[in-house]
């Protein structure tokens, strides 16, 4: 299409035609009454009852925990302000290294277990679909949707019948009276 031809299209007029068509379809029952409010209400119900809580922050905190949960002998400082203190600390650390390592292993084991439990709790909470009440509400909405669709079909059929009856009447009126 040439640019001049592109300019020939009056967009205001296009929109006015669309608005008229919507009004006509509403009048004829092609768009059932309450269509928009039904849809809006459905979304509101979802927002109010079924949207999952956000655990992004909790997950980030658990991830941050990972960086701090490695226990080791190398992270125990042996520095000292006193003369000869550092050598003394190093010597003591060497003497009790076996016992310290044993304690650290137990702490590590416990920390890993706690972390796994936290991850499991978040995973369980993040899955509201597994909660029986959420399922029930979802099923209820699905039934309501089907009911609404069935009602819309009935309205459409009624409108089509009315249109058909109108056309039959018009045809009858157009038939010339018998001589």
């Amino acid at each position, binding site marked *: 299409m040439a640019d001049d031809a592109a300019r020939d299209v009056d967009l205001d007029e296009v929109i006015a035609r*669309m608005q008229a*068509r919507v009004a006509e*379809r509403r009048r004829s029952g092609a768009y059932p009454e309450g269509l928009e409010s039904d849809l809006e209400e459905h*979304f509101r119900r979802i*927002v109010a009852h079924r949207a*999952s*809580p*956000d655990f992004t922050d909790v997950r980030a905190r658990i991830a941050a925990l990972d960086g701090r949960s490695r226990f080791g002998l190398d992270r125990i400082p042996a520095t000292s302000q006193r003369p000869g203190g550092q050598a003394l600390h190093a010597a003591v650390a060497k003497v009790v290294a076996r016992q310290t390592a044993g304690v650290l292993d137990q702490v590590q084991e416990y920390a890993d277990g706690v972390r796994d439990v936290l991850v499991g709790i978040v995973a369980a909470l993040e899955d509201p679909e597994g909660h029986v009440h959420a399922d029930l509400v979802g099923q209820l909405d699905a039934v309501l949707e089907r009911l609404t669709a069935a009602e819309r079909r009935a309205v459409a059929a009624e409108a089509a019948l009315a249109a058909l009856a109108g056309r039959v009447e018009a045809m009858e009126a157009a038939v010339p009276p018998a001589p």
Partner: protein
Amino acid sequence: MSRRVHQVVVSASAGDAVTNEALAMRSALRTLGAVGECEIFARYHEPALAGEVVPLDEYARRSPPTAAAGEDVLVVHASIGEPAVAEFLAGRPERIVVVYHNISPSESFRPYDPAFADLLDGGRRELAELRPRVAMALADSAFNAADLESMGYHDVRVSPLVVDAAALTRIEPDPGTAHHLAEVVEGPVLLHVGQLLPHKRPDLLVQAYHVLTTYLEPEVRLVLVGPGRLPRYRAAVQHYVHELSLPGAWLAGPVSDAALAAFYRRADVFVTASGHEGFCVPVLEAMAFGVPVVARACGAIPETAGDAALLLPPGDDPVLLAEALATLLDDADLRASLAARGRERLDDFDPARSAAVFLGHVAELV
């Protein structure tokens, strides 16, 4: 003597409109003789942008104070609140230029993420408090300028977004996405590009799509491309699509530029039901690809789209939106007309011209 003109953004991420503009502005500033150093400092940034932006807490080291620091300029991109940035700005001697990209209204976010809604409110407060220190205020649309003036600013100048909306057209489309769209996705495709956020009203778009496929055109696909930064809201939209039984609606999430190019190439119509936009870059991107645009006349969209889009009244009317989509899918001449107008409209946002406007403003200060 050359002046330092650094930029400050709260968050820098690849593909983000504000980040893209800051990068484009930096390139433009580097052509200005009076400008010496010019870097982009970000409070937060994606690792992928480490070579492009500098962490804000390195500002003092990278740009040490000088006797003439009061003559230097800080260009601050405002789109959300961040107390650390506000505190940083309060202690700086440089002259401040605010570039306002719009701070989304918080009320639509509050039910989904109160903390994020607080950040938005905080952003408005911080911007109002910064006003006495601001040497120049710029906004990328008249809509944004009016919004900034409502926060007490005067003489806000409109400086069009420096964006190369046609850049995507020069990218090779992602072969996998292009193949999927060509071979698997059947029928006309309606494309929406933008973050899945409440004020952009993807829920209204889903309603319109439901009306379209139930009453008017059953064989149409809807693709929503863009990140869902509020998981709770994204989940609600996903539930909605599922419960309305709309298998033709696809929430594609965030995609690469190459994949986005493939989506634009496959799209028959670009549609947005957004109720609040400070500019709306995807409208121009769609025009660059020759894709006709349908939108509601909300926020800055009428300014951006001009007379090159089918702009519906701003009310929440999914039925009219569905009717508009059906009309456009059915009318090849109308599609061609809008595509031709879109290409013309794109010329009004030539990035070189927009950059020149911005440099003209900055030149007054350096």
